[in-house]
């Protein structure tokens, strides 16, 4: 039986199309449809139920050292209540999952992981346990709302006591929202300014959900638009663009890989890959014909020779053209390189471009 989030009944009442996503019954879209929802988030404020995300808590005297051992980024650089994008590398340097690391206190971390990987990640973390740490899978204890868009701060401020303009990008706080403290961070997956709110009190989460929907600037947004929004920014989706067969360097995730850390899982393999240079790289491309929409799994050619494959593709609602990401063999990854995508038997011209595809996002940096 797929799980339901605390907001499930609201989605049904709002007329959402529900799909099974990673074992959760989630809204893929509401009656407006993906394109309108996407544009709404780029212009106003959209509310996403992301309660399917997993939360794993690490506490104890050695929590910092342990988090630093299992993740690729350097958690020691985090201030208390700062947030960091990171990954769990395998010994081979490939990716168990990507995640957000919240440093809630000196030795108290909350790791926010992908829904499809909750159990795998939890077992992975347990099996690599080191030192004096307590590891808890808290995934069922949190409901989560992502509130995203250029108007998100203005709207959320109406029901929040603390001054949100003082919360920098990738920082968190315990804020009083509708009279109760919730964990709130300035983070997101859309390329717009926005927040993520974590509710341990589900009834309170429901109140906030309904309250935010009352504002004219706000619409509910489904997972369909969440995917097109993240792809326009070139953010990786686990299971598509990254997985246990892609290493962090070829995936273009060196910016969250701190090889000068003392010791962590995958360090040896990743140092070697860095030294030798990756055999392929994740690239972004746009297709020439508007009608040519790349899709996951399609092959990429250069001068008639197969050089890679597509990992994510869609029609970009903002740019009105086909966009995609994929892995391409080295020497063919330079910006401006002309490639061809095999879209159902037809070789469609495409050009490798710089990310993000969408350059007017309001995300704070």
């Amino acid at each position, binding site marked *: 039986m797929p799980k339901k989030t605390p907001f499930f009944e609201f989605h049904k009442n709002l007329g959402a*199309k529900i799909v099974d996503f990673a074992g959760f019954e989630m809204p*893929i*879209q509401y009656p407006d*449809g*993906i*394109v309108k929802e996407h544009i709404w988030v780029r212009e106003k404020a959209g509310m996403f139920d992301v309660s399917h995300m997993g939360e794993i808590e690490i506490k104890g005297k050695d929590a910092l050292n342990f988090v630093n051992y299992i993740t690729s980024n350097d958690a020691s650089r985090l201030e208390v209540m700062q947030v960091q994008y990171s990954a769990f590398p395998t010994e081979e340097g490939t990716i168990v999952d990507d995640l957000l690391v919240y440093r809630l206190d000196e030795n108290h971390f909350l790791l926010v992981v992908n829904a499809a990987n909750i159990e795998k990640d939890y077992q992975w973390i347990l099996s690599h346990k080191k030192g004096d740490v307590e590891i808890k899978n808290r995934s069922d204890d949190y409901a989560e709302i992502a509130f995203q868009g250029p108007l998100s701060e203005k709207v959320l401020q109406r029901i929040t006591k603390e001054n949100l303009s003082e919360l920098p990008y990738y920082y968190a706080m315990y804020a009083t929202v509708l009279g109760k403290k919730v964990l709130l961070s300035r983070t997101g997956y859309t390329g717009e300014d926005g927040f993520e709110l974590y509710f341990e009190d589900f009834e309170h989460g429901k109140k906030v959900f309904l309250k935010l929907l009352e504002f004219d600037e706000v619409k509910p947004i489904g997972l*369909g638009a969440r*995917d*097109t929004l993240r792809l326009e920014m070139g953010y990786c989706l686990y299971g598509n663009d990254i997985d246990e067969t892609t290493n962090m360097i070829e995936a273009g995730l060196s910016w969250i890989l701190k090889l000068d850390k003392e010791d962590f899982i995958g360090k040896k393999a990743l140092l070697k890959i860095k030294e030798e240079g990756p055999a392929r790289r994740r690239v972004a491309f746009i297709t020439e014909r*508007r*009608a040519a*929409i790349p*899709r996951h799994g399609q092959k990429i050619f250069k001068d008639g020779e197969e050089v890679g494959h597509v990992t994510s593709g*869609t*029609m970009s*609602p903002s740019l009105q053209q086909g966009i995609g990401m994929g892995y391409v063999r080295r020497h063919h990854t330079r910006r401006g390189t002309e490639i061809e995508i095999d879209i*159902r038997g037809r070789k469609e011209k495409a050009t490798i471009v710089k990310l993000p595809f969408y350059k007017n996002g309001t995300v704070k940096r």
Partner: protein
Amino acid sequence: MNIPENLKYTKEHEWVKVEGEFAIVGITDYAQGELSDIVYVELPEVGTNLNKGDVITTLEAVKTVADVYSPVSGEIVEVNEKLADEPGLINQDPYGEGWIVKIKISNPDELNDLLGADEYKKVIEED
């Protein structure tokens, strides 16, 4: 769910409106809802001869892509050119402005294989 009584259907979610020796073909309201947000229609050419079951066209939606199969054999005599610029017509008005092609039927016996509205409703319920 909108399933007009006066149309014929296929299990693949095409609808057929028979007008004399011609068949007008589109996709059903259910099908457009499943695809959602159709963003491109690769229009076929007038004069193309089709066998029953051949692909008439491919519909690109944001999340997915779907083929439209010919419910009958015959020659395409007209295509809905408006879909080139406004593919969303299929979502907005699947049985009207969102029609896809008009086919001159070469084997009228094949019409007997098509489903009535009640039979099509059962197909959806089992989907």
